[in-house]
């Protein structure tokens, strides 16, 4: 299956980030013009008919989400764009905003028009310094050419777009945490309901959409729903930017129709497993998606097929793992991330990730005790279904998912054996305060011995 550039058009049209090039060579802002002529309801209908689903993680139909917004409300309505890309394994938005920002901004304006918003906030990663400059440049160009500001295209529709920088917190990718963060509170999730469409930013109707989702919108409006449906599957139409990373020969972004299989993505586009190794598993939707094995390689990479296979489409980040990798170590790296990024609001996540990390740390250091694997399993199961938001749920899901297929990798750490790769001991906090800061190379057993002997004194 060949790549189709609906989003990554900068690969076919050089300098598409320049306003003139975008307008003259890439039908720029034609989608917005058409949207303004169609009217709000028809724009929502076209996007509904196209079957476009949110590319951020949940895969919720975008047109339906827009349809939830109340009609003819008095007072402000807000549009929030989630550009807080930070799911390990995902880097699609990063490429879009740096290289094709106008298409994204046009999508933002159409989306804001459809939901009746007059202010849009683009909540971007603090780390995307250059990306934010590119977005701001596109926004300035749009203002200068009458696509933003008062009475856009001679209609009664007015819109302002502001950039809001976040400062590196994974939880702020969750939509209600993002709203709290914009309002200036701690970026912790809110209870739903009320959903943002009823009470979002400053308790006003709000829609939150992902960058890649919105970048699809201009072409869908321009060419119609059927055009979009020529790619992908019935329930997951269109293309998606798959981010390939890990033990693959050619990592990078690949924009492919959503009916591509994992085998095609990894083996053909990615060039197969690096160094001629075999494949042990792959994580199909960013670090939050449970790991799948070689047996799942023919799974279609759309939302429903991956869910049926026991994982999820998530953010589209496909992480490939070769047969030399220790899955217990992999789980430790993932749990490190969740433990660091847990916002502390609910105890199942705050304490659960702490215990997961503590157990995996001591297993890796050769201080594992009999029953540690079972305890890790028990802790993870106790988190299942009781965490406040998907962050904690992901942490238990990835550990239990890894244990389901690779339990032997965990059990080898039962007694005494330590991981002999690199363990940055500076990161290991709980219960091992004496460990040397900075980390050790080689066999972690030596470090453990050092700790033990220092304890003996």
């Amino acid at each position: 299956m060949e790549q189709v550039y609906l989003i990554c058009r900068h690969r076919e049209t050089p300098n598409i980030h320049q306003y003139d090039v975008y307008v003259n060579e890439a039908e720029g802002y034609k989608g917005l013009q058409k949207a303004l002529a169609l009217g709000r309801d028809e724009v929502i209908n076209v996007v509904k008919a196209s079957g476009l689903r949110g590319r951020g993680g949940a895969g919720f139909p975008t047109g339906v989400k827009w349809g939830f917004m109340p009609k003819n409300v008095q007072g402000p309505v807000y549009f929030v764009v989630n550009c807080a890309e930070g799911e390990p394994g995902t880097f699609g938005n990063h490429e879009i905003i740096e290289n094709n920002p106008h298409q994204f901004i046009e999508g933002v304006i159409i989306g804001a028009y459809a939901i009746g918003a007059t202010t849009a906030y683009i909540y971007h990663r603090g780390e995307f310094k250059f990306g934010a400059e590119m977005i701001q440049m596109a926004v300035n160009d749009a203002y200068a050419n009458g696509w933003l500001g008062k009475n856009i295209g001679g209609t009664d529709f007015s819109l302002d777009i502001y950039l809001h920088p976040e400062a590196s917190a994974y939880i702020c990718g969750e939509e209600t945490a993002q709203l709290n963060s914009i309002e200036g509170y701690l970026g912790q999730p809110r209870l739903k309901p009320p959903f943002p469409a009823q009470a979002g930013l400053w308790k006003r109707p709000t829609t939150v959409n992902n960058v890649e989702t919105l970048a699809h919108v201009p072409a869908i409006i321009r060419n119609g729903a059927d055009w979009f449906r020529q790619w992908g599957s019935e329930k997951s139409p269109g293309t998606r930017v798959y981010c390939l990373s890990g033990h693959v020969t050619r990592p990078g972004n690949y924009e492919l129709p959503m009916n591509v299989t994992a085998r095609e993505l990894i083996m053909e586009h990615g060039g197969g497993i690096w160094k001629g190794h075999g494949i042990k598993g792959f994580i199909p939707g960013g670090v939050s998606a449970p790991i799948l094995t070689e047996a799942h390689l023919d799974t279609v990479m759309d939302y429903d097929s991956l869910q049926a296979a026991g994982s999820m489409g998530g953010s589209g980040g496909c992480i490939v793992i070769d047969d030399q990798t220790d899955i217990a170590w992999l789980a430790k790296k993932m749990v490190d991330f969740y433990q660091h990024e847990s916002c502390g609001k609910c105890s199942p996540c705050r304490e659960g990730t702490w215990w997961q990390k503590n157990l995996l740390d001591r297993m890796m250091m050769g201080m594992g005790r009999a029953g540690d694997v079972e305890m890790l399993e028990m802790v993870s199961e106790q988190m299942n279904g009781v965490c406040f938001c998907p962050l904690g749920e992901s942490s238990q899901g990835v550990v239990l998912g890894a244990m389901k297929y690779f339990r032997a990798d965990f059990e080898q750490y039962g007694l005494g054996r330590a991981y002999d790769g690199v363990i940055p001991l500076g990161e290991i906090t709980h219960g091992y305060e004496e460990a040397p800061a900075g980390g050790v190379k080689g066999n972690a057993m030596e470090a453990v011995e050092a700790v033990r002997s220092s304890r003996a004194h």
Partner: protein
Amino acid sequence: MLLAQRRETVDEILSHYPEKRAALMPMLYEAQDVYGYLTDEAIREVALILELDATEVYAVSQFYSLYYHQPMGKYIIRFCTDMPCALVGAEWAYQQLLDILGVQNGETTPDGLFTVEHAVCLAACGSAPVLQVNRQFFENMTESKMRHLIDIIRTSGLPQDGPALRHLPRTADTPTGF
């Protein structure tokens, strides 16, 4: 100091939001830029501008990773060691960087130029190992490239940031990882 030096920027940021409090995050970036890091005085001034308690400002600033509460080096290097990067050797590479600079995680070089810390996912996993210097990306890091980068910064500062073709798939002759 923030108001004295950046009155226009402060007013511009405040104009984006219906409530002053919402300007907190962009304002903390500005304060950090002016004061060097978030000193108690910086926190108090932001609180004053936004009509908040200093405690509230402090709490929010502690929630995120990019606000600093102690003096930092002129160049802050953040190195991703998350799982996708670690798969291709980012933990080794990070250790090499620490060795090159002769510091440990979180420390600043004695000349005050570099502070090094590990970061959570920087959203550039396809070109791992990856680091940021003052929020500018440098990708596909190897030991020799990191030595080169440090030399360049020491002699002539940060190279200009630019549009990246870096997410394009690598060619066959591009070395992968380590």
